[in-house]
C-alpha cells in the first residue's frame, strides 16, 4: 500500500471521524451551561451516529440502503427534537428569565 493509499478514505477513517464527533458532543453537553449549547452537543452526537450508519452501509452492506434510511430518519428526528427543545427552552426562559440550566434546580433533593 502506498502512503497515499493509507489516506484513502475507508470504514475506519469514517468511524474515526464519528468517534471524534461523539467525544466532542459529550464534552459539549457536559461543559456548556447554556441550554442551546447542550442542544448543539446533542446534534453532534446524532451526526456521529448518522456517519456511522452511512459508513457501515457503504462499506459492509452496499447492496442495501437501510443505513441511509436510518440516517434520514435521524435527521427528521433531530429536526423534531430541535423544535421541541427550543420550545421548552423558550418556556424555561420565560419562567426563569435565564437560559442557564444550572438554575433549573427545583428538583434538588
Amino acid at each position, binding site marked *: 500500500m502506498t502512503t497515499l493509499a493509507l489516506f484513502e478514505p475507508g470504514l475506519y477513517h469514517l468511524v474515526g471521524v464519528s468517534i471524534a464527533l461523539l467525544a466532542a458532543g459529550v464534552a459539549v453537553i457536559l461543559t456548556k451551561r447554556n441550554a442551546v449549547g*447542550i442542544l448543539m452537543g446533542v446534534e453532534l452526537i446524532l451526526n456521529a451516529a448518522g456517519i456511522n450508519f452511512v459508513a457501515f452501509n457503504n462499506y459492509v452492506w452496499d447492496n442495501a440502503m437501510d443505513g441511509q434510511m436510518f440516517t434520514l430518519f435521524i435527521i427528521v428526528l433531530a429536526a423534531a427534537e430541535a423544535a421541541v427543545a427550543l420550545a421548552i427552552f423558550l418556556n424555561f426562559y420565560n419562567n426563569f428569565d435565564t437560559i442557564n*440550566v444550572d438554575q433549573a434546580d427545583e428538583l434538588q*433533593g
Partner: protein
Amino acid sequence: MHTLITLAQLTAVEADQETVRKLLVWATLLPLVSSIMVLFLGTRYLKKQAGTFACVVMGISFACAILAAFKFTSGNMESFTWKIPWIPIYMGKDGASWLYLGLFCDQLTVALMAMVTGISLLVHIYSVGYMEGDKRYERFFCYLSAFTFSMLGIVTANGLMQLFVFWELVGLTSYLLIGFWFEKKGPQLACKKAFVMNRVGDTGFLIGFGILFVQLGGKVLVPAADGSMFDAIAAELGGKAAIMEHPPMWLTVAGICLFFGAIGKSAQFPLHTWLPDAMEGPTPVSSIVHSATMVAAGVYLTARIFPILTPAAHLFVCIIGLITLVMASMMAMVMTDIKRVLAYSTLSQLGYMILGVGSGAYIFALFHLITHAFFKCCLFQCSGSVINMAHHQQDMRYYGGLAKKMPLTALAYGICTLTISGIGIGSFSIFSGFYSKDGIILGTYNYAHELGGLGSLFFWGPVIVAYITPFYMARSFALTFLGKPRDQHLYDHVKEAPKTMVVPQLILALCAIISVPWLLPWEQMIEVTRETLVNKNVTWIQGIPTHAEHHHIALPLLFGLAGALMLAVGIWMYKDGFGKAEYLLKKVPGLKLLYTWALNKFYFDHLYDVFFVKMTKCFAAICNFIDKWGFDGLVNVAGHWTKGLAWFTGAFDNKVVDGLVNGAANSARAGGQALRTTQPGRIRVYVSLLFVGLVIALMFAMTLVTG
C-alpha cells in the same frame, strides 16, 4: 250470665269481640300516627294546621273508643284478651316462647279508653287556643298525642312487659311536656324532678315485677288467656280469698313494690313533690296530667294489682293514701297560686282514690278517677284561661271579681267546684263527684270497721277532708271570681277567653254534672263486682257497699250537706280578700304554726334536700376523707415504689433503648443527607452520570464479549 252458649251465639260473641278489638286498637294507635305525622310533617307542611290535624285524629280516636264502649256495654260482653307474638325470647326444639303484644278488654278498659280519649280531645282543642303563637306550636301537639298514646297503651296493655313499656313512655312524654318551655329555669328543674321521682317509683315497679318473675316463673310474661294478668296470678295462687287468708310474704313485698310504681306516677306521699312543680309546664299539660293520663295511670295500676294485694299490702296502700289525702288538702288551703291550689287538690283526690283501692272499694276509686278527670280537667282549663288572660299572673292575690269579665269561665269553674265538693242531699245529687266520693267513704267505713281501734282514722280522715275540700275550692273560687278586683290594672285587661278554650271547658263542666252515672253502667259493674266477690267469700271485702248500707242514709247527709255548709263558709271568708282569714290566723292559737308548715309544703322539699341531697354530699365527703387518708396512703407508698422503678426503667429507656432508636434514626438521616447530594436537581450532573453509566456499561459489555 252463666247460660248455655250455643254455637251461633258464640260466633256472634266472637264477631262482637272482633269489632271491639279493632276499634280499641284503632283508638290506641291513631294518636301515635298523629304524633308521628305532626313530628315529620308539622313544621314543613302542616304548620298552623298541626293543631287542627291532631284534633281531628284525636276525634276519630275518641269516636272509636266511644263506639267500642257502647258496643261492649250494650252487648253485655264479657272481658276478653287478644295477643300477637312480639319478641321471641327463646327459640328451642320444643317451640318458641314469646313476649306478646296484646289487648285486654273489660268494663274498666273501655270506660277508661272513652274517658282518656275524650279528655285528650278536649285538651287538644283547648291547646289550639292556648298554645297559639308559641314558637314550637306543632311540636306541642306531637308530644301531646304521644302522651295520649302512651296512656292508652297502659290502659289496653295485656302483659306486664307491655304495661311497663307504656309506663315508661308516659314518663318520657310527661318529661317532654312539663319541660316544654325548657328555655326557662323552672320547667327545666320541674321536668327533671318529675322524671327522677318517677324513676324512683319505677324501680319499685321493676323490683315487684322481678319478684313475681322469680316466684312464678316465665308465665308472668305471657298474657293470661282470660282476665287481666293479675287476675291470672291471683288465680294461680288460689284466688283473692286464699291470698287474703294465707298471704305469702313475698307477695306482700311484690304488691308493695308494684304499688311504688303507682306512688311515683300518681304522686302519692313520699314521691308527691313533683306534681305541684309540674305546674311549670303549659296549662293544657297540667290539665291532662292531672286528669286523664299520668296520675290516672297510677290509680289504674293499683286497681289492676288489686287481686294480688295481701292484707298487709292493703294496709300499706291505705296509709299512703290517707297521708297524701290529709296533707295535700291542708296545703291546698294555704296556697295562693291558683294552679298550685288545684295541684294539691289533685293530690288530695288521688289520695281518696288510692285509699279507696286500698280499702277494697276499688270500683268506686275508679269511678272517682273518671269523675275527677272531668272536673279537674275543667278546673285546670279554667285556671289556664284566667292565667292566659291575666298575662301569666298566677297569684290569686292579684285576682278578684273576674266573674264579671269572664262569666262562662266562672260558670264552668263554679260547677266543677260544686262537683268536687260532692254537694248532695240525702242520697241524691246531680253532681257526679258526690257519688264517687260517697262510695269511697263507704268503702273506708267498712275497712275501718274491720280494722277497729286506730283503724278508724281511715274513716275519719276522708270525712274531714270531705269538709276541707269544699272550703279550699270555695276559697279559690271566691278569691278569683268574686269580690272586688285587687289589681285594677290586671282586671281592666282581662276578657273572656277565645272559643276554642271556652267550649271545651263548658263541655267538661257538663260532663262533670250529668257525667258518668248515667252514661256508663256503673250500677251494673258494682253488681257484678259484688257478685263475684261474694261468690269468692272474701270476708271483709264482701261488704263493699253492703255493710255500709245501714248507714247509707246518714253518711251522705253527713258530708253532702256539710260540704255545702263549708262551701258557704269558704265563700263568705274569702269573698272580700284575705282580711277575715288573717284575723282568724291571729286569734286562733296554733293555727299560725300549721299555716306556716302547710305553706312550706310540710318541709318535704327541705326534708328531701337534707336527707338525700345533703346526706349524699356528706357521705361523699366521708368517702373523700377515707379516700384521701386511707387509700391514698397506700396508693402513695405504691406510688413511690413505682416512681423508683420508673426512674430505673426511664434511665434504661433513655440511655439504651433511645440510644438504639436515635442511632438508627441518625444513621438514616446521615444516609439521607449523603444520598441527598446525589440529587442536585441539575441537568448537567444527571447527564454526566448518564455518561459515566454509559462508560461503565460499555466496559462491562466489552469484558463480556472479549472475555
